[in-house]
């Protein structure tokens, strides 16, 4: 039960997020005070809930793909047969981390055109890096004695991976996924400049039209989404840290 009680914080953030989406109109006086001269103070070109849905979808798809590819690649290069590629993957991960996400997005457009696809690809590529780095660190952090004992007791390679190495590396891997997804939520907003419709829309249009209220509305919703997801990961990690 105490495990479930930890869900309170993410649920509170989720409640605030949904309330903000549905009830943004109620805050009109506040935004009117900020932006007295504009014709519209509440972003109305699209419904906030549907923007939120698209935002979550893009981040989820990109996140799921980064996890599958990132964790998969890291597992592969820490096996006996994939060890030759370990330096390569580790270096690519390290170099990639120094790339600003905007640059990744800008580079993706000429190749993939405008729309949701380049955003997913950019988020996927940028999100891979913390996951790979942490998965490698987690798997390599399993002590040599434990691995030796697992082999010596007669565990098969897949048993060693799933019963020993992955559970022991889990908290570090989840920390990497947490970083990756949280960054993606923020970065996805830039995708609005490339025609992907999401919570970045109010921000971009607010900047273009000089409407601070719209910028703030988008930023508020993205921040609430990021806090909600981040606290969800914090809860996931707290369940693992007892190991």
């Amino acid at each position, binding site marked *: 039960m105490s495990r479930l009680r930890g869900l309170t914080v993410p649920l509170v953030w989720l409640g605030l997020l949904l309330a903000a989406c549905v009830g943004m109109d109620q805050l009109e006086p506040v935004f009117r005070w900020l932006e007295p001269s504009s014709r519209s103070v509440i972003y109305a070109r699209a419904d906030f809930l549907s923007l939120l849905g698209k935002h979550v979808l893009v981040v989820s798809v990109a996140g799921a793909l980064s996890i599958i590819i990132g964790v998969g690649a890291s597992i592969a290069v820490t096996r006996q047969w994939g060890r030759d590629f370990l330096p390569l993957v580790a270096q690519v991960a390290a170099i990639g981390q120094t790339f600003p996400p905007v640059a990744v997005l800008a580079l993706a457009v000429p190749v993939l055109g405008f729309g949701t696809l380049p955003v997913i690809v950019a988020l996927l590529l940028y999100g891979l890096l913390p996951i790979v780095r942490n998965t490698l660190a987690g798997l390599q952090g399993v002590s040599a*004695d434990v691995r030796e*004992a*697992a*082999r010596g*007791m*007669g*565990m098969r390679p897949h*048993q060693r991976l799933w019963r020993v190495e992955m559970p022991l590396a889990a908290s570090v891997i989840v920390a990497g996924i947490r970083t990756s997804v949280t960054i993606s939520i923020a970065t996805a907003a830039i995708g609005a400049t490339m025609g992907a419709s999401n919570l970045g829309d109010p921000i971009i249009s607010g900047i273009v039209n000089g409407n601070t209220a719209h910028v703030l509305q988008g930023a508020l919703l993205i921040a609430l989404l990021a806090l909600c997801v981040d606290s969800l990961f914090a809860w996931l990690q707290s369940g693992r840290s007892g*190991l």
Partner: protein
Amino acid sequence: MIELKNLSRQFGEMWAVRDLNLTINKGEFCVLVGTSGCGKSTTLRMINRLIEHSAGEIHIDGQPVRGFREDLLRRRIGYVIQHVGLFPHWTVARNIGLVPRLLGWEPERIAARVDELMALLGMSAERFSGKYPRQLSGGQAQRVGVARALAADPEILLMDEPFGALDPLTRDGLQEELLSLHHRLNKTIVFVTHDMDEALRLADRLVVMHEGQIRQQGRPIELLREPVDEFVESLLGGNSRGLKEAALTPVAQRLCHAEMTSGVPDIDANKTLRDALSLMLWHRVDCLNVVEGSESLGTLRLADVVTARAPMGTTRGLSS
């Protein structure tokens, strides 16, 4: 029975083990000793194929180890390492039950076996089975390590410096328990150490290795008395071999005066001549009363300790 025939292992250009021949009988306590890098650990790890041999053969009960799938082979051989390597995310009970679980035993049978092993190693199941490895002391962790190795009742136990990281007192206690376990369970044990006192104390058969080859093997007392060369002699302790031999000889063996002497300290008949000498030095006396429990057996004189029946064969004396 474990037979190593013309066994070799090469790492790059270097021979870690070269052309080694050794037969370990069933139920024997075989200790491999030598300096670091002499190939003793490599030899041990070739038996359960953690390291594959480059040449030669290893047979267990007449069957070549390469004839088994490696994980199945290892489940039949207990394995204990210096830093224990308990799985930190599993409880003590789950750690001990690992190999039976891999072998697909029924949960009830595993639970019963885990309790039995904890009792065997003097750990209260109630107190320890739910604990995690980080909550154990070094000695307790290694007990669990030994229990885990014994879980599926293997015929053979391989131990790679299992007590090397423990404090002397804990090490002493665990050596004692291992000896008594060996007497009770009659497992074939292959034990690697560089601690010569530990080796002499535990071994039925002592194997001295140097540069990947066996320099000498035999009963500890034979090696002490008749080392084949200066390397073996110095490894066995050089001039302190006298005391090491004394540590292997029980007091009862030298007892030849039945009468009692008054006013001298007692010594238990199960203690060693080394203990007797130490007592004499400490109390500045030259005889001790030998007792067994509350019963007096007679007197041990300094002369009895020093002058033994002449040992067999030629003797390499201590250099003066």
